[in-house]
């Protein structure tokens, strides 16, 4: 019998770490990974709450899982497009450092 708040705190921690990653890392790919980390944190809350509500006999508690799937789909799409963008950027700028990619045009 684990308190729900543990899960939520865990996801909060992960989320904050993800934001830190976003704020502090310089490599575009790593920043992307931080975003994925945040998404995962959110997924954790979804799943935890799904379980929690099914405990409390809520219908459609499983929709939490479904939302997780949707988040995954979005993450996959984002990863595909984002990595393609990264490759394109790298081709033109020869760098992955976001601080060097702060102009819209070369």
């Amino acid at each position, binding site marked *: *019998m*684990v*308190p*729900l*708040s*543990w899960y*939520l*705190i*865990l996801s*909060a*921690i*992960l989320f*904050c*770490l*993800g*934001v830190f*990653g976003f*704020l*502090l*890392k*310089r*490599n575009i*790919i*790593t920043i*992307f*990974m*931080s975003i994925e*980390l945040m998404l995962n944190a959110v*997924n*954790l809350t979804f*799943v*935890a709450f*799904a*379980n*929690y509500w099914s*405990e409390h006999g809520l219908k459609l508690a*499983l*929709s939490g*899982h479904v939302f*997780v*799937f*949707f988040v*995954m*789909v*979005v*993450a*996959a*799409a*984002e*990863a*595909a*497009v984002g*990595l*393609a963008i*990264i490759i*394109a950027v790298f081709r033109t700028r020869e760098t*992955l*450092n976001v*601080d*060097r990619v702060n102009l819209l045009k070369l």
Partner: protein
Amino acid sequence: MVHEILFIIFGLICVAGAVNLLVQRHPIHSALSLVLVMASLALIYLLLGAEFVAAIQVIVYAGAIMVLFVFVIMLLNAGAEEHSPGSKIALLMGVPGVIVFGCLVGWIMIHTSTQLGGVRINPSDFGDTHNIARLLFRDFLLPFEITSVLILIAIMGAVVLGRRQN
């Protein structure tokens, strides 16, 4: 009891992986630590009785998305990230902001943990494939279709972006 122990173990692994993601300079290490986070998250999902989600988490996230990341890192042969003058705003505003954010949320959670109550490992028919499939293909059919369209568009976009303009 077992539940708590397992949760603590995997939660700690998660946090450790996430922290490692931050401290590592080389993207591939970050990627691997993220994979670690995801794997242990999958196990936590199992604790929450969401075995299907757990499996999908491993297959899709760890197995596909992260492989894609690693693949790109290898392709671009990205080295350790070099130091560059970051943005002061990020340091002066973002970091404290995030800390405050985390502290506040944590405070709320601890504050309300007693009212919230807890979760236990459900009977296995909770998160099993049949129910999820029923939900996904009946109640959420339209969103499902829309997400598939989204994926399709993303694929096209990736192809277009990835093609070498010449």
